[in-house]
């Protein structure tokens, strides 16, 4: 059996009037990348901040490298690196000074210069933090976690707000951590990110685990269909009903916010023909059609009945 870095059983954390985390359990194998996936408000940040000792839990058990954060937080802190979702830092220190300051907190830190290079801030090392862009600040936060040289990196939405290029760079950095034997525990609401990066993941919603497994397993288990996606041509309730009555697909989903309609099918040519017929019968333009393999996004949609960004 694999060695575990984190083991959580029945974790509960309540705030006034809200069950932010309501009994979740999971195990993180040492040296793996574990993803926690869910929409905003699902309880991801609360979970990560309880694991690193910022909150006291209301129930359940936590073991981080064999320690309970409520008993041995000082020991845990020396062994982990943490990137909070929106960390606040001394605004007038430079990138280099900030990384140096953090490195002095840890017994065996990484080389600050190397950390700055890895997160791509070498050209900004003498810039004061208040002058950094949101994305740069985010990368610095990841760097501050990395400089700990800890055995586990807790990264709370590490790539939120980054442009696609910066996001990909950061993925490489995270993969690099894994190659060096570091366990990574990250949260994200990007399905693609979870799919590409994580060895294991759990999808949570409203404080509860919906499903756990590897990305491949989850997709295989929950979305064997192909997705045909198109722009909502302005369906009325009546035409919506008509579309569903035609039985042109296994399932029909509506992504309200994105104004997309998704048809899940096992028979792409059949569904496609029916769809185009439907369009000409009702004088509706079926535009912007995408045919793709089902993704984690679809798993989420299927399990919760709504899109992750809604």
């Amino acid at each position: 059996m694999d060695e575990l870095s984190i083991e959580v059983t029945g974790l509960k954390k309540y705030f006034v009037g809200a069950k932010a985390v309501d009994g979740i359990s999971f195990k993180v194998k040492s040296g793996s990348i574990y993803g926690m996936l869910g929409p905003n408000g699902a309880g991801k940040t609360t979970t990560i901040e309880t694991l690193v000792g910022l909150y006291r839990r209301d129930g359940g058990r936590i073991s981080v490298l064999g320690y309970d954060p409520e008993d041995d937080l000082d020991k845990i802190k020396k062994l982990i690196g943490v990137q909070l979702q929106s960390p606040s830092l001394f605004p007038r220190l430079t990138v280099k000074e900030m990384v140096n300051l953090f490195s002095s907190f840890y017994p065996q830190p990484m080389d600050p210069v190397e950390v700055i290079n890895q997160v791509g801030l070498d050209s900004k090392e003498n810039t004061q933090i208040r002058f950094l862009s949101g994305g740069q600040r985010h990368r610095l936060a990841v760097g501050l976690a990395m400089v700990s040289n800890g055995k586990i990196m807790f990264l709370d939405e590490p790539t939120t707000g980054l442009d696609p290029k910066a996001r990909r760079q950061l993925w490489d950095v995270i993969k690099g951590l894994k190659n060096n034997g570091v366990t990574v525990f990250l949260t994200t609401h990007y399905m693609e990110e979870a799919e590409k990066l994580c060895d294991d993941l759990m999808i949570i919603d409203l404080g509860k685990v919906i499903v756990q497994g590897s990305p491949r397993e989850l997709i295989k288990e929950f979305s064997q269909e192909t997705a045909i996606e198109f722009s909502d041509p302005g369906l009325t309730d009546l035409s919506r009903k008509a579309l569903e009555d035609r039985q042109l697909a296994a399932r029909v989903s509506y992504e309200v916010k994105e104004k997309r309609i998704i048809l899940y099918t096992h028979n792409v040519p059949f569904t496609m023909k029916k769809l185009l017929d439907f369009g000409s019968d009702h004088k509706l333009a079926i535009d912007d059609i995408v045919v793709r393999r089902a993704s984690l996004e679809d798993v989420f949609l299927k399990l919760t009945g709504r899109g992750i960004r809604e």
Partner: protein
Amino acid sequence: MRIFINVFLANLKELIRDKTALFWFLAFPIFFVFLFGIVFSGSSELVFNLGIIIEEPSEMTDKIVEAMRAIDSFKVSVARGEGSEEMKALQKGERHIVIKIPAIDYQKMASGQGVEILVYYDASKQQTSQVLMSVVEKMFGEAEHNITGIPEIFKIKQEAIQADKLTDFDYILPGILAMALMQLGLFGSLQFLSLREQKIVRSLGVTPLARSTLLISEITLRLLMALVQTFLIITIARIVFGVTIISNIFVVFAVVIIGSLTFISLGYMLISFVKSNEAGQGIIQIVQFPMMFLSGIFFPPDFMPSYIQAIVRAIPLTYLGDALRQVMIGVYSGRSMLTNIIVLSGWLIVTLIITIKFWRWD
């Protein structure tokens, strides 16, 4: 220790790079020293109205009067015999103190019994009267020392008593410093409040850095700032306005550190009860503004009604102002240095206990 130094340096850099904050930190005391220095420069020396009642004039009493008159800041009027007109003047508030010198019995004096000199003072003007008393006591103390029948006993006038050249500005300078230290201590706590409000304290909470280290480095920085301000204020007062500081600068620094700690602690206590920076500003203003006027750092609170005087005697700024006046210009108010230090320490301990009880890290 290495971590402490690093966090201290981080705080220091934050301060130095915040140009607005740095400007006010340096400009504020300079501004006040110049403002008061100019307002009180020139002729407006403190004048003490002194009445002397001489029961039986003699060569000796003439010398006493001469000695008193030689002090610039004394306005001396003399009455002979019963001197009831001087006593009336005292009651009307026209005299700060009245000294009554009885007929001198040289035989008694020769046998070492000394002369009993009565000093009447206006209780409602306690503070100024006290200043005056200390001067007079010192004069007669010196006199007694020499009282062996030699006519020259009252050459006291050549002694360098600070009251000789005490100007209003001298009196106010320690007040400016006390005010600066109070404001630094109280408003300085907002720095931590903003670290708290901006969640920097929380963000650092996921690292092995002990939060107490963060706080101690803040306090250390605040003390350093207090010493820099003290040095600035004293240096400008000395170079531009010619004020002489009677004590060793390190004695002044020691008082400054005790006073600063008291107000830093008071500041931290106040921010324990609020969440936002705005609320922090408010609660500190509510405390510091009345304190500034009631402490007698700028003018003696003699004329205030007695129930206000009770407040005056309760607030720490009164004692810091008094302590600084003693060590800087040698004006004694009747309170001993020990009292000042005890009261300031008492405030420090009490506010510290309340702070620890109500303290919030985030």
